[in-house]
C-alpha cells in the first residue's frame, strides 16, 4: 500500500472527501516528521515508537579504492514496532 491508497482507504471508511482525507493523512505524517526533526521521540500506542539516533562523523575508507573518505555526522530515525503491532502481524 502507498500513501494515496491510504488516503483513499481513510476517505472510504470515514466517508470523507478525498481532499479532506489527503489533508489529514499529510498532517498526520507531518506531525511525526516534525517531531523527529526537532529530535523528539514519537510514541504511538498499539503501533510503535520512533526515536532519532545521532551518529558522529568519522574518517572511513572506500574498501574498493582504499581512498580516505570523511563520513559526516548524521541523524537517523529508528522504529520499534509496538507489542500490539507485532502480535497483529503474527496473528
Amino acid at each position, binding site marked *: *500500500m*502507498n*500513501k494515496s*491508497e*491510504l488516503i483513499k*482507504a*481513510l476517505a472510504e*471508511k*470515514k466517508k470523507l472527501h478525498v481532499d*479532506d482525507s489527503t*489533508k*489529514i*493523512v499529510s*498532517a*498526520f*505524517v*507531518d*506531525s*511525526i*516528521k516534525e*517531531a*523527529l*526533526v*526537532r*529530535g*523528539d*521521540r*514519537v*510514541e*504511538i*500506542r*498499539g*503501533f*510503535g515508537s*520512533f526515536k*532519532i539516533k545521532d551518529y558522529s562523523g568519522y574518517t572511513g575508507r572506500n574498501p574498493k579504492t582504499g581512498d580516505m573518505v570523511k563520513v*559526516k555526522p*548524521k*541523524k*537517523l*530515525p*529508528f*522504529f520499534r*514496532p509496538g507489542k500490539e*503491532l*507485532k502480535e*497483529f*502481524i*503474527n496473528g
Partner: protein
Amino acid sequence: MSGQTLTKAGIVDYLYEKTDKNRAEIKEMVETILEIMKQAVKNDHALLVSGFGKFEAYDKKARKGRNPQTNETITLPPRKVVVFRLSRKFRSELNP
C-alpha cells in the same frame, strides 16, 4: 535534544490546528489511519509513505535460542518482523 515525546494526543492536537474537524472526529480518524496502516503492513507486507519512509514486514526463520537465566535451549518460532526504512527525502530533511 529536547527530550519531548509526541504521543497520539499530540498528533490529535496537531491535526486539530490544521483542520476544521473537532477533536473526537480527529481522534477517530487517527485510530482509523493506524488501523489501515497495520492492515497494510500485515496484508501487503509493505506500506510506502512517500516523503517519510517504508514499513516492511519480513519473515524470520525459526532459530534456536537460549534462556540466559536457566540456560535452557528453546526453539524460537518463525515470525514476522516490521522494519522502517526512511526515504531519501526525509533523510535529507533530518540532515540538512
